[in-house]
C-alpha cells in the first residue's frame, strides 16, 4: 500500500494550522480594533451640513455664549437645537445676502425647518441628561472637546460606555465651579485637590456605586 501522506504533509499541516490560528487572532484583533476605532465611533468626522456652521467663528471670534443657541441646556435633558428664528436674530442684520446662509433665510421664509445632521449622539438605550451635568459643574468641553476651535463641527470624543464610566467612577477631577462650565479656557487652580474636595461636597456628588448603577443611564 502506497503512502497516503507525502513526506512534507506534516509540515504543511503544521504551517496551515499555525496560519489559521494567526488569521483567527488577526481577524479577531482586527474586529476589536475596528470596534474601538475612530471610524466606528464616528469621531473627528464632519458630516455635510446644509449650512457650513462654524462654532469657532461664533464662540471664539464673536464671543457668543453657548446658552444663546442651546437655550435649554440647564433646564432639560436636551441642550436644545436653535430654531431658525434664533439664527435670524443676528442674520437679519448681518450677512443678509451671504450665499451660505440662503438655507436659513429660506427656512424662515417658507416656515420649513433646517435639516441638520446630528454630530454628538449616544445610542437609544442611553438616557443622557444635559441639565444634571451642567448643575454638577461638568463643562461642555469634557464631552464636546474644544468645540470653540472647530470651524466645522465634529465629534470630539468616542461616546463609548467607557468614556462615560471613567468620569462616573471618579468625577472629582472633572468638576468645576458653576460659573466656569461654559469657559473653554479655564485652567484648574494650583491647589486643585482642595477645590475637588470642596466641589464634591458642595454638589453632593453621589457615590461611584450610585453613579455607575445601570439605571442611572439605562432604563
Amino acid at each position, binding site marked *: 500500500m502506497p503512502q497516503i501522506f507525502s513526506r512534507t504533509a506534516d509540515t504543511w499541516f503544521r504551517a496551515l494550522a499555525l496560519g489559521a490560528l494567526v488569521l483567527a487572532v488577526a481577524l479577531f484583533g482586527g474586529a476589536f480594533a475596528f470596534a474601538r476605532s475612530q471610524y466606528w465611533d464616528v469621531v473627528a468626522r464632519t458630516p455635510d451640513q446644509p449650512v457650513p456652521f462654524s462654532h469657532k467663528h461664533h464662540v471664539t471670534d464673536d464671543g457668543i455664549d453657548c446658552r444663546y443657541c442651546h437655550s435649554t441646556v440647564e433646564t432639560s435633558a436636551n441642550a436644545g437645537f436653535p430654531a431658525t428664528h434664533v439664527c435670524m436674530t443676528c442674520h437679519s442684520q448681518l450677512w443678509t445676502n451671504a450665499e451660505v446662509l440662503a438655507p436659513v433665510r429660506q427656512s424662515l421664509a417658507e416656515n420649513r*425647518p*433646517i435639516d441638520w*445632521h446630528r454630530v454628538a449622539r449616544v445610542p437609544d*438605550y442611553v438616557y443622557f441628561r444635559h441639565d*444634571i451635568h451642567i448643575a454638577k459643574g461638568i463643562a461642555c468641553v469634557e464631552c464636546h472637546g474644544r468645540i470653540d476651535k472647530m470651524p466645522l463641527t465634529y465629534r470630539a470624543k468616542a461616546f463609548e460606555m467607557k468614556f462615560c464610566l471613567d468620569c462616573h467612577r471618579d468625577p472629582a477631577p472633572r468638576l468645576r465651579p458653576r460659573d466656569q462650565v461654559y469657559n473653554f479656557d479655564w485652567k484648574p487652580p494650583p491647589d486643585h485637590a482642595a477645590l475637588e474636595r470642596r466641589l464634591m461636597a458642595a454638589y453632593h456628588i*453621589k457615590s461611584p456605586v450610585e453613579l455607575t448603577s445601570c439605571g442611572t443611564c439605562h432604563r
Partner: protein
Amino acid sequence: MSGGKTFWRSIAEYQRSDAFGEMLKAEFPSLFELWTVDRREVLRVMGASLALAGMAGCKPVRSDDVVPFVNRPEGLLEGRTEHYATAVPFDGFAQPVVATTSGGRPIKLDGNPEHPAFRGGSTPFMQAAILDLYDPDRSQAPLAGGRPASWGDFDGQMAKWRAAWAQSRGAGLRILIGPTSSPTLLRQIAELKAALPQARVHLFDPLSGYAGEPPTRLRPNLANAEVVVSLDDDLLGPGAMQAINARAWGERHGDLDVSNRMRLYVAETTPTQTGAKADRRIGVPPSRLAMLAKAIVAGGEVTLTEAEIAWAKEAPAALEAARGRSLLTVGRFAPPEVQALALQVNQALGNVGKTCDLAAPLTYVPGAGESFLDLVRDIEARRVSALFVLGVNPVYQSPGDVPFARIYAKVPLRVHAGLHVDETAALSNWHMPLNHALEDWSDACSPDGLATIIQPVVRPMYDTRSLHELVAALTADEAASAQQVVRQTWPQLAAGAAWAGALKTGFVAAPQQTAATPAPVQVAPPIPQPRDDQVEIVIRPDPTIHDGSFANNGWLQELPKPLFKTTWENVVAISPRLASQMQVDSGDMLRLESDGRAVEGPAWVLPGQPERVVTLYLGYGRTRGGSIGTGTGYDAYRMRGIAQPWNAVGTVKPTGAKTKLATTQEQHLMDGEVEGLIRTVSPEHPSARRGAEETDETSFYPKWPEGKTAWGMVIDLDRCIGCNACVVACQAENNVPVVGKKQVYEGREMAWLRVDRYYAGDPDEPETHFEPVPCMHCEQAPCEMGCPVHATVHSPEGLNLMVYNRCIGTRTCSSYCPYKVRRFNWFDYTSDQPSPIEAQRNPDVTVRGRGVMEKCTYCIQRIEAAEVQADIENRDVREGEVTTACQQACPAQAIRFGNLADAESAVAKQRRSPRNYALLGEQGTRPRTTYLAKIGEKADGE
C-alpha cells in the same frame, strides 16, 4: 403554614385535575402543550429564538437628522413634557383627564388630580383613549358614496340642503345622536330645533334602551354611604362613575378601625366586580329580581330561595340601621318599576340628598317622538328625507329585531359623521370624519355635575372637523370654528383670564342644574319567565370593549376581562352547574336561540353565575370595526329585542365545536403556598403574618448595603377593586406592546402588571379576590442570581434593574422568578406597527427589541426624573414626588409607592401595619412590593 383558604383560579384547578398540575409546572403553558404534541416544533421555536435573539444588540449607531423649530413656541422646552387639562368622553359623560404631551405628541392620559370628584383616578377606558387618537384605522378624509371627497364638496351640497330646510322649516330632516352631556351641543340642538321646528333630534343610546326615555335614576354619592345595597348595579364596574365610586370605596376601606367602613350588599344577575367586593352577595336570576326588590320593601316572600330570603332580611335591616347614611341603588339594566322602588326606599330612609341625589339628567333628553323607535317608525312611514347620524353606529348597535341596515337604506339622504368608516358609514351617502376628543374644542359634564372645557392637545392629524362645526353648518351659512361655538356657550368665561383659568383647572361649574321631578313610572314589558327547557339570557356591555366603540383599541382588546381573564373576544358566561349538566367546558361553542334569533359563542364557566342564567356580552362581532376590531367574537346585539334589550329567554345547547380561548387566568402561575397568596384579617385578629419563616432573614447571600433611599410598594387588597386601570396605565407609560390573540393564547402577553383573580369556596357562590402583581423587586432576587450576563442587577436603591442591551434572552431569570412577572419578547412586536401608533410611545422608556426580557421597573424613568430634579436642587427626593403609573391611575388608591428608608413615608407606615405581608414570603426573596391583607368579619383560620 396553616389556616389559609384554599384558592383556585379555574374550575379545573378547583377539581384538582392532573392536567392542571402539569400546566403549573410548565414555565409557558403553550410550550407545555406543544411539547406533548410535537417536540420538534418546540426545538424549532427555541432554536430560532436562540439563534437570532443575541443579534438584536448588534446595530451600528446611526447618525441621524435633527430638525429644530423655525420658531420655538413660547414656553416649550425640548425634552420636557407638557400637561393640559381636558376630558375624554365615555357614555356621553366627561372623564376629566390631564394629557401629557412630549414634543407636541400626546403620550399619556391620567385622571385630573384637581377635579373634585375624580381626584386623579382613572379607569381603563380613560387610560386607553389615547390609543384611539393614534388608531391607524381612523377615518382620514370625507367619503361620498364610498369614494374620496372633500369638505368643499360637502359644504356645497350643504348650502343647497340648508336652503331647502329653511323653506320647509326642517321637514324630513332627522338627526341621530348618541348620549351627550355637552352644554354646547345641547345648546346647538335647542337652537336647531327652534330654527327648524319640523326637524327632530333622535337619541340613540344602546346602553339605555332604544324606546322612550330612560327612567329617572338616582345619582349615587358613595362618599357618604356606610351601607350600600345594590340590586344589579355594578357601581365599581365599567361606567362613567367608576373612578368616582372607586375613590369613595377606597376611602371607606383599608382601615382596621371599621367604624368608617362601607358595608356592601349585592344581588346581581351576573357576576360583576361589585359583587366580587361585596360583603354579602347573592346571584339572582333576572326573573326574580323584582320579587327580591319587593321583598326588601315588604318583607319575606315565599317564592324566594333560602339564600335570597336571608339576603332580603339582612340587607334592609342594614339599610334601616343606617338611615341617612345608607343607599339602595338599582342598576341601569333593571326594570323601571324596580328603579322606582329605589327612589321610594331612599326617600323613606332620608337618604336622598345625602347618599344619593335626584338631579335632572345631564345628558340629552329627547322630546316626544324622538326615540330611536320613533325614528324607525318614521322611516318606515317615509317621513324621513335626510338623516344625519352623528357619532353613533346604529347599523351595528341596533337590536336584533330591527333590521336597521335595510331600514336605513330607505332614507334618501344618509350622512354619517364619526371617527371610523364603520358599519353605518358604509351604508351612507356621505361619511364625514370627525376630530378625536384630544384634537377638538368641546365641552362635557362629568357625572358628578361639573363641566369640563375640552381643549385640543394636538392639532387634527387628518382632514377632520369638529362635530360642533358640522351641527352649526346645518343652520348657519357662516362657518364658525368649534372654539367660537364653545365659547358662546360660556358667557361667564368670556373674559380671557376666566377662560384660561377654566382650561387650566379642567373643570367649571355646569350651567344651572335643577333637581328633577321623577318621571311617571313607565310600564315596561315584564321580564320574561323561562320555561323549564329554557334559560334566562342576560345581555351586558363587554367589560373592556364596552358597547363595541373600543373594538379597535389593542390595549383594551388584550386587557384581560376582570372576572374571566379572557382577551380578544367575548364569551357566553354559564354557571358551573349548567356547564356540568350540558357537559361543556370553557371554550366549547354554545348556540343560543331566542325568539327566532340565534348566536354562537364560546362558553365560559363563571363561578357565581346564577344556575339557569346565561350572560352575553356586547361589543364584538363587528364587520367594520377596523383591522383588529373586525371579525372577533360574536355579535350579541343580534339577540336583543327593541323593547327588552337586556333580558331574554331562550335555549342553549353545545354545538360540539371547541375554540381556544386566549385567557390569562392560568398563565404566570405562582407555585408556592397558594393558601397564603391572599390573606384576610379581622379587627380582632389583625395580624396577617403566618409562621416565623416569613420574617426569617437568613440567607446565603450577603445583604445589600442600606442607603438613604429604598424604594418600595405596598398594595392594599382591601381597596383593590380589580378594575385594571393600573394595567392599562402601565402599558401606556412603559411602551408595553400588544401581541395579539394567538400570542396571548401561547402565554406570551407582555403586560408588566397583571391582576390575578382567585376564587375560594363553593363555585356556585364563591368568594372572589383580586391581586395586582407587579415585579416584587426582591432584595434577594432569584432572577439576579440566574442571569448569566448580568443583564438584571440590583441598584443601590433596591430596584431590580433590567438592562436590555445586555440581555441575550436565555430566559433563565424568568424560570427563576417565583412570581412569574418577567415577560419575554418572543418576536419583534413593535417595528411593524402601523403608523402613527409609534407617536404614542413614551420617549423616556426604551422600546424593547426581539429576544429581550422585560418586566416592571417601578417606573424608573419617573424615579430618575424626580431624582435628577432633586439633585439639581441639591436636596433629597420628597415624599410623594415619585408616583408610579399604576399608583397614579388607581382610582381606589390601593397602591402606594415611596421610600421605605424614610420612616415617615406613607409606604413605610403601611409596611408597619399588622396587615402587611409578603407574597411567597417563605421563599426568602424579601420582596420590596408587599400586600395589605383584606379585612373581613373573620380572619383566615377563624
